[in-house]
């Protein structure tokens, strides 16, 4: 394993630890307003400073890590379920089923994803769970294509033919003989997808369409910081860095596993 992959793993590990132990790590309640300490720069009492309502930035970012991690897991989980299902159906049955599913994938890919996201957010309540669901529902197409391509090549292998010759049913052939072999590339794609999902959530939250305040997410902290960027640089710099590092971490890990 090379150094970059290790670096990626460390970032993700820190992220996971922060998310799990958020209540223990954060020195303040992330919602606690302290009117005496509005927009105070990083100091010994508030290591990353406070925001325009006097809330401790570090504590808010630690809780924000929870949102980011969850978004990555759930959104990718949703897109995995849909992508693997559609991809394996298309690849295994071929013919009309394949054309139908793949044209649907093409259509989904034609929509500018972000506008699709914004439209869906407009119809659903912007809870954290809905945001994750929506990100998942708009990001499964790449996985479906990947799984289809893998299934197409694996279904021609001898052991699949043999399983069929010995009387195994289609479901058993797909679940026992084909899907386990698609795992390595799918895992890589899923990890890269988690980085993408975090980025999407941040972007939505930054536009005010994602996670709604007062629940902290890196995206909405960034948005709130934008208004006061000329007097409180720390409110945009640190959440921005956090997003950058998290996405970088997932990408490095994904790339490392690909090899």
């Amino acid at each position, binding site marked *: 394993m090379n150094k970059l992959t290790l670096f990626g793993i460390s970032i993700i590990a820190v992220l996971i630890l922060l998310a799990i132990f958020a209540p223990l790590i954060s020195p303040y309640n992330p919602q606690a307003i302290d009117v005496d300490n509005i927009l105070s720069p990083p100091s010994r009492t508030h290591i990353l400073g406070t925001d325009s309502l006097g809330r401790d930035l570090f504590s808010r970012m630690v809780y924000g890590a929870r949102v980011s991690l969850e978004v990555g897991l759930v959104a990718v989980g949703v897109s995995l379920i849909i992508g693997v299902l559609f991809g394996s159906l298309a690849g295994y049955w071929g013919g009309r089923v394949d054309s139908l599913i793949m044209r649907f994938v093409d259509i989904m890919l034609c929509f500018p994803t972000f506008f699709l996201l914004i439209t869906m957010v407009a119809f659903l309540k912007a809870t954290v769970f809905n945001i994750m669901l929506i990100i998942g529902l708009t990001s499964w197409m790449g996985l479906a294509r990947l799984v289809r391509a893998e299934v197409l090549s694996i279904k021609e292998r001898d052991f699949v*033919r043999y399983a069929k*010759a010995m009387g195994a049913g289609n479901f058993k052939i797909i679940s026992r003989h084909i899907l386990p072999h698609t795992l390595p590339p799918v895992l890589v794609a899923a990890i890269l997808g988690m980085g993408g999902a975090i980025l999407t959530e941040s972007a939505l939250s930054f536009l005010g369409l994602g996670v709604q305040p007062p629940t902290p997410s890196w995206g909405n902290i960034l948005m709130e910081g934008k208004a006061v960027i000329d007097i409180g640089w720390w409110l945009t710099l640190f959440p921005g860095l956090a997003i950058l590092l998290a996405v970088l971490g997932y990408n490095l890990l994904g790339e490392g596993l690909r090899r």
Partner: protein
Amino acid sequence: MLPILSVKNLKVYFSRGKKIIKAVDGVSFFIKQGETLGLAGESGSGKTVTALSLTKLISEAKFLGGEVVFKQKDILKLTSPQLQKIRGKEIAYVFQNPVSSLNPVFRIGTQMVEIIRLHQKKNKKEAKSYALEMLERVGIPDAEKNFESYPHQLSGGMNQRVMIAMALSSQPSLLIADEPTTNLDLTTQAQILELLQKIRREQDLSLLFITHNLEILKRLVDRLAIMYAAQIVEFGESLFTRPLHPYTQALLSAQPGYEGRRQILKGEVPSPFDFPSGCRFHPRCPFKKAICEKEEPPMQEREKGHFVACHLK
């Protein structure tokens, strides 16, 4: 006695773009209960496609015609769930590449238990002890230990034994062995053949043995069918001693150890996109007559139980 399997005018066509590939084109033969039929022919003559069509395993075929009657049922007319009950249970296969025909990510034992439980009502423990018994029957030493091995940890011959054990686990009445020894070295080949012989005697199993190695067939089979260009050209018991078709004669004379003048055939196997008119063998036949180019020779019974498709008398 009714044959256990009879194939009538089997046709399997594939399409590549606009072209039609006739992989099997009007093949008829039968297998009697408990006998071994050899199916021989050059690569690409349609042996494997014939074997796979017997349980309708050719899903990508453009056209599948004729009849495959197994125990009074026409297999080509069965639905997928009905076919799944026949495949592996009544008609089992042994394939050419034992290592790649087993799933590399599961242990030998897991795969055996799975196949056993697919066709028999056994719980995991019963299936395991039955699998161990089967492994011992096919001569795998240290069955308990090899049960836990992965396919890549065993040799080709061992994997082939495992595949035979899997194929025999549900006591099929017909075993189709498609070049089961082609990729094995000679001593292993002999052991596997020995094993197949032994099992056949013990179980009253009917066997369809496919190979291009006539030397093997000579020792193993009761009757022989020779395929050329998607058709069976000769079929019967006395092929080795009295071959009637010029192609069979040439094939036999090409075997090592043949005494007498070898016949060297000119030309190549015709392309399945475009077979010659009349008898498909006529461009390479040393005895060809005018009629051979025009008319397809019908399958005739020249001697009792010896069929041949040739215009020559």
